[in-house]
């Protein structure tokens, strides 16, 4: 079974530039999460999708971050414009059905973003 795919694996940009990350979850997984992991810390949720609807985006800095999950499969996370403090690893995770929290989340390899 293929795991969660993410691209690119690494990205370096200048502050104020824009960047986009792509995630392809495990086939059949209804729930998709984007987490931000700053060096030395645990991952923190940015946004949770159930199929193509948003469940929780309370911690997403909406003035600069946006995300979509068209057709309830792939997802894209965008940052525009980027700030220095956005330097982090962006992790995508999926679960079979995240409605209850019971199902484990499977994580992709992450995208390491460096903002100069």
């Amino acid at each position, binding site marked *: 079974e293929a795991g969660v795919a993410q691209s690119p694996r690494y990205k370096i940009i200048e502050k104020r530039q824009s960047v986009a990350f792509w995630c392809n979850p495990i086939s059949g997984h209804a729930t998709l999460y984007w987490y931000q992991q700053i060096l030395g810390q*645990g991952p923190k949720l940015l946004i949770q999708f159930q199929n193509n609807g948003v469940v929780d985006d309370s911690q997403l800095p909406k003035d600069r971050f946006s995300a979509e999950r068209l057709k309830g499969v792939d997802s894209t996370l965008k940052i525009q414009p980027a700030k220095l403090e956005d330097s982090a690893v962006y992790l995508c995770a999926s679960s079979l059905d995240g409605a209850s929290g019971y199902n484990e989340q499977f994580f992709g390899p992450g995208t390491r973003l460096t903002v100069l």
Partner: protein
Amino acid sequence: AQKVTQAQTEISVVEKEDVTLDCVYETRDTTYYLFWYKQPPSGELVFLIRRNSFDEQNEISGRYSWNFQKSTSSFNFTITASQVVDSAVYFCALTSPANQAGTALIFGKGTTLSVSS
């Protein structure tokens, strides 16, 4: 508010030593799920175990064992006879279905385990 605390930032052991990673959690929900994940140097988080709040049985899987105690809000992880391949960052995490905002995992800050030969 829900919270997970992993007080041990870094632990260093020599191969074959036993090591316990501590995890303390806070939640007001009666139904919740606790998880342990491993993050090796490659960066990908790997699921290790899930425990629900109604099941306090300890679990053993090979060299790994977990001790869940609701009385102390702890969910500790022990590696017996550690090996170099166990070197990684280990995260404890919490979620609950009662959280109206969703079921994202609340992670601790992680414990970095270094096993030397």
